[in-house]
């Protein structure tokens, strides 16, 4: 600002500058005040600041004209664009859905088995399914469906209810032991009425089922056939009608060691698989069911 170097031309050179001092370095005059040694220059207001103010104010005025901005009484100015962030979000979401219409909507309307057979489609949908699984299911079933304590492995060949995609879709939609009115319902009753010794024998038997060393002709085997086979199957390989897990394999929900099985027998179990209806769309649910089926297939030799 060259014009300010001449003190006489300073725009604010009014009486308040009093006995002015000239700053030897800049050649500007000071305001004449002295606060324990601190002084101030009377440098003119830089024009660029005024321009910046005008510019930012201009930006703001335009925003105020276009967007909802100023409240008054019980209402506010809506702006020329009549923007509503919630409508915009809903529209944006619809656009997203439109963008995946060619493949995603097929999962809502077509037969799961046919979808499953369409390799190209499944390939397209796979990343979406994985993301949905990781955000919603992996917390319980583990990344990749590897299961966790109290939550079944999905990446294996055994199923609680059925391997049919239609059933899987229903399981996801309604849940198991969930608060949905149509939920699947599978309860392992408590056998607390049994003698502890009987439970212990049964438990040893169940643990042995895993490696095929269980003796069905023993007392415990008789107890099993009498009390458990109705749900878990005569050979303990699972009965798909009641959602009772297979006890003959290593893939367990709660753990097939003695202590855990004793706990199961003493108190019973009723694991909860949440219902996803409402939270996920029909298409997403079907997609996930097929994804889970695929996890299981991929895990089989």
């Amino acid at each position: 600002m060259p014009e300010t170097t001449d003190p006489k031309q300073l725009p604010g050179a009014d009486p308040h500058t009093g006995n002015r001092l000239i700053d030897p370095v800049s050649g500007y005059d000071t305001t004449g005040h002295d606060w324990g040694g601190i002084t101030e220059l009377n440098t003119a207001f830089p024009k660029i600041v005024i321009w910046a103010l005008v510019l930012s104010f201009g930006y703001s005025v335009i925003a105020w004209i276009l967007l909802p901005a100023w409240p008054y009484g019980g209402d506010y100015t809506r702006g020329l664009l009549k923007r509503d962030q919630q409508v915009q979000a809903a529209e944006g979401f619809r656009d997203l859905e439109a963008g995946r219409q060619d493949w995603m909507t097929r999962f809502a309307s077509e037969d799961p088995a046919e979808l499953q057979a369409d390799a190209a489609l499944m390939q397209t949908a796979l990343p979406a399914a994985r993301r949905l699984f990781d955000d919603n299911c992996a917390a319980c079933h583990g990344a990749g469906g590897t299961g966790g304590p109290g939550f079944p492995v999905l990446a294996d060949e055994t199923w609680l209810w059925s391997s049919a995609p239609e059933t899987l879709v229903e399981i996801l939609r309604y849940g198991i032991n969930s608060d949905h009115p149509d939920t699947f319902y599978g309860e392992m009753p408590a056998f607390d009425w049994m003698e502890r010794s009987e439970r212990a024998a049964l438990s040893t038997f169940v643990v042995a089922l895993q490696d095929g060393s269980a003796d069905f002709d023993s007392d415990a085997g008789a107890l099993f056939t009498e009390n458990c086979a109705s749900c878990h199957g005569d050979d303990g390989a699972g009965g798909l009608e009641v959602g009772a897990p297979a006890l003959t394999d290593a893939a367990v929900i709660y753990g097939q060691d003695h202590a855990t099985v004793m706990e199961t027998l003493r108190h019973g179990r009723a694991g909860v698989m949440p219902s996803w209806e409402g939270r996920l769309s029909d298409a997403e649910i079907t997609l996930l069911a097929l994804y889970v089926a695929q996890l299981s297939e991929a895990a089989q030799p």
Partner: protein
Amino acid sequence: MLRLHYNLEKISMGMVAAIIVVASIGGIVEIAPLFTIDETVEIPDDLRPHTPLELAGREIYIREGCYACHSQMVRSLADELDRYGPYSLAAESAYDHPMLWGSKRTGPDLARLGGKYSDDWHVAHLIDPRAVVPASIMPAYPWLTGSLDTSLLQDSLAVLARLGVPYDDEMIAAALADAAAQSRPESDGAEDLRARYGEDVPVSAFDGNPSHLSEMDALVAYLQSLGRLTNAAYEGLAEEDGS
């Protein structure tokens, strides 16, 4: 102008008054209308306040500073709708003293959490997050299995009622009974609780042990209530969708 300021600078109380006036304008213009413009908060018919147990859980959520990592506000952005569900409505936190919208998502948003996971999962996750989610960086809260202190619960409801939360005298009187009943599915109290707060209130032995009222019961009850105090957000989005 300069002259005016030049003189103002000499009067300390003048500066004080000027600062107060200048610094008040913005706040008044932005805050006052939030009380006078009706569409700011439209209370839906089905909105219920938190049950006493959920309220106790909310206090634990505050105490442990969960809000430091978790937001409870799905923003009106398409990708957030895609990931979390319907955007949050002002009405959903209308009874929240204070609101817990949060300002940082070290962990995911929790506004639509209710019903997403089972009680058992929450208990396992809170006791040791890495037991269920190996990559989690969330702290463990094993001490939540301790007993719930309910000594302030009744007074809390009474204070909130005075602040405008629709707790009636009966709810206040039954606060302790309701808190216990919500974690005892088989008890008679559960019916009374539902009569007061609505049929959809989840009644469950949240921590798996109905005979012991723990902090875990309260926190899980609270977590299960998130996003489920009203259905308006889901209905609102469906309407937007229809239009």
